[in-house]
């Protein structure tokens, strides 16, 4: 009854897929900031980003995570991912684990929803058992990494309130810096600060503040590439925990778009087929 994979319970690992999917609306944010209150400006950016970030249809990709503790010891996670957009609802996602080897073949299915809680199922290959699991664990660590489930989940616009703070240079680009406050009680954060560039509205950096408002973690995103002549997807995401000194580097590879996935690839039956 204590299946190993349960302990890893990749709760909302609707992974960075969507977080990454920051093909933000290319509207000039300076105009937004000039003509709106800071709250309205923040919300406008998020809404436009959602509109611009959707429409890719489906994709498959591979993720490699390297978990590093403060002594430099490393552990590795390999995951294969399939994502399907759904009209007027959250995405469908399937994750299959290749590494560590003791959880190889373990698969995770998410039917995300915009306002209602997500539906999540876990497939345990040793027992050939499909288990419906709770999606309420938002703040827990994903697979022992520095990413929490909520960091990996679709960052639905409705799940935050916003405030545009300032514009500032970020590398060779100019970024809008926005504060967003989670609406859900289950979040482990009091607030997040997000950097979007004005060029394509990609996210380059996120700072996470815990419930005591301490600066807990920083996420840096890099190696963006454009796909389908439109969407910018990240190649590397580095999460640093400032309190523990641990870090997790998440590398994305093998992106393939519009592969012909449909609803039938995201059912409990197809979950059982995962390998």
């Amino acid at each position, binding site marked *: *009854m*204590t299946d*190993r994979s*349960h*302990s*890893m*319970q990749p709760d909302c690992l609707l992974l960075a897929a969507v977080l990454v999917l920051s093909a933000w609306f290319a509207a000039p944010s300076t105009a937004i900031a000039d003509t709106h209150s800071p709250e309205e400006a923040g919300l406008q950016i998020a809404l436009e980003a959602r509109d611009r970030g959707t429409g890719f249809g489906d994709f498959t990709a591979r993720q490699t995570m390297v*978990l590093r*503790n403060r002594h430099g010891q490393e*552990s*590795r996670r390999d995951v294969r991912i399939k994502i399907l957009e759904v009209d007027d609802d959250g995405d469908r996602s399937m994750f299959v684990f290749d*590494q*560590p*080897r*003791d*959880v*190889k*073949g373990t698969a995770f299915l998410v039917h995300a929803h915009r306002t*209602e*809680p997500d*539906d999540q199922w876990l497939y345990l290959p040793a*027992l*050939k*058992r*499909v*288990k*419906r*699991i*709770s999606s*309420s*664990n*938002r*703040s*827990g*660590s994903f*697979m*022992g*990494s520095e990413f929490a489930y909520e960091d990996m989940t679709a960052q639905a616009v409705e799940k935050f309130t916003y405030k545009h703070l300032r514009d500032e240079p970020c590398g060779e680009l100019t970024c809008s810096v926005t504060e967003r406050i989670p609406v859900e009680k*289950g979040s*482990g954060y009091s607030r997040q600060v997000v950097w979007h560039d004005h060029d394509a509205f990609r996210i380059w950096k996120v700072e996470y503040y815990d419930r005591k408002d301490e600066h807990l973690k920083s996420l840096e995103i890099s190696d963006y590439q454009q796909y389908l002549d439109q969407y910018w997807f990240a190649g590397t995401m580095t999460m640093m925990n400032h309190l523990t000194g641990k870090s997790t580097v998440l590398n994305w590879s093998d992106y393939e778009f519009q592969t012909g996935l*449909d609803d*039938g690839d995201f*059912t*409990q*039956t*197809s979950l059982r*087929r995962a*390998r």
Partner: protein
Amino acid sequence: MRSSLFLRGGALSAACVSVVLVSAEVRAETDFVYEEVSGRISLESREFPESAVFPGQASHSTGLVFHPKLYVEDADGRSVTVAPFFRYDSADPRRTHADLREAFALVFGEAGDSEWEIRVGIDQVFWGVAESRHLVDIVNQVDLVEHPNEETKLGQPMAHLTWSGEWGVLELFGLTYHRARTFPGPAGRMRGLFVIDDEHVSYESSAGEWNLDLAVRYTQSFGPVDIGLSAFDGTSREPSICPTPVPTAQLTQHYEQIRQFGIDSQITIDAWLLKLEAIRRTGFRNLFCQQEEDYSAFVVGGEYAFYSVWDSPADLSVLAEWNYDERGQNATNVFQNDLFLAVRYAFNDVQGTDITFGVFEDVDLESRVLSMEFNRRLTDYWTLNVEAIAFVKIGDKDFLQHGLENDSFVGLNLGYSF
């Protein structure tokens, strides 16, 4: 005996697989575009601190398990999976056994708005939601020599058709060959007062183990509610354990033709999982084969998780389930009126460490069994599992557990996954 069963099952599955492969070949050259070998090797040890009840029973056993899995897939996603299983056990020759856990071909596709899937060969199927016992789960035979928790199963030859759509999932099973349950031998621990004969197995069906058993299952989700309905008609997976005509130290296994209807449901809300499994079984004999007694049984309970407890990254889950069987004292299993309570602490660390404490409390028969399980990943390839089961108290009238009083044990498993 074990090996001959294995070979028979193996030959059958090989036949099944080749049929599917040949039919797949009809569509010209099916080149496999993906091949993979994975699996697990583990070294096990069990220590029984209390002296054995019967002469010849060991107080220590060492075991080696090899469980590889071969998977090949063609460009259309059609696949073949083969997963044999081998165990060597130093104490009980019956526990040294081999099995074909999986050897099946799989094809799937779409038809209009619905999807279909066909699996043919030896496979494993899991039904249900409960943790303390798998009541509705009936397709596969239990490989009981592996572990008394009945979680490990023998491969089952079958044709398995799945048809699914917005309206739910419908599955049909044709089960072509019956596998007899495995039991510990005279030298094994946790065998109880009587050894179960594993050579003279009898069947109610004139076709013996070749009776064609049928099963059907329908599942659907309504928001937070998952429901499964199932029916089974054929050879019971649970044996009737009968006395021999001439009394000996052995009991025999007899497999009856039964019909079983099952329902299982889980409601998932916030951190709650609420669970129910219930069956109605007809045509099965009650304890020690006295007579046929139709009955109902259920397990009801749930699980609640506290996340990030005590400001740590860890989760604490509390589980409670009530098992009930209306045959009471005539029940053929230990779950006639039993409470299961457990606490699981998951550290959510890099090593995926978790520890679970559980207790089975027999409300009527005053028996109590404690369990502990600890899991930890040592590296990205090695894992450690430690478990302990303690038969703290066995009631005078708990006949099914008599002889287990001294069989408490501590088990150690060091596994390498590849």
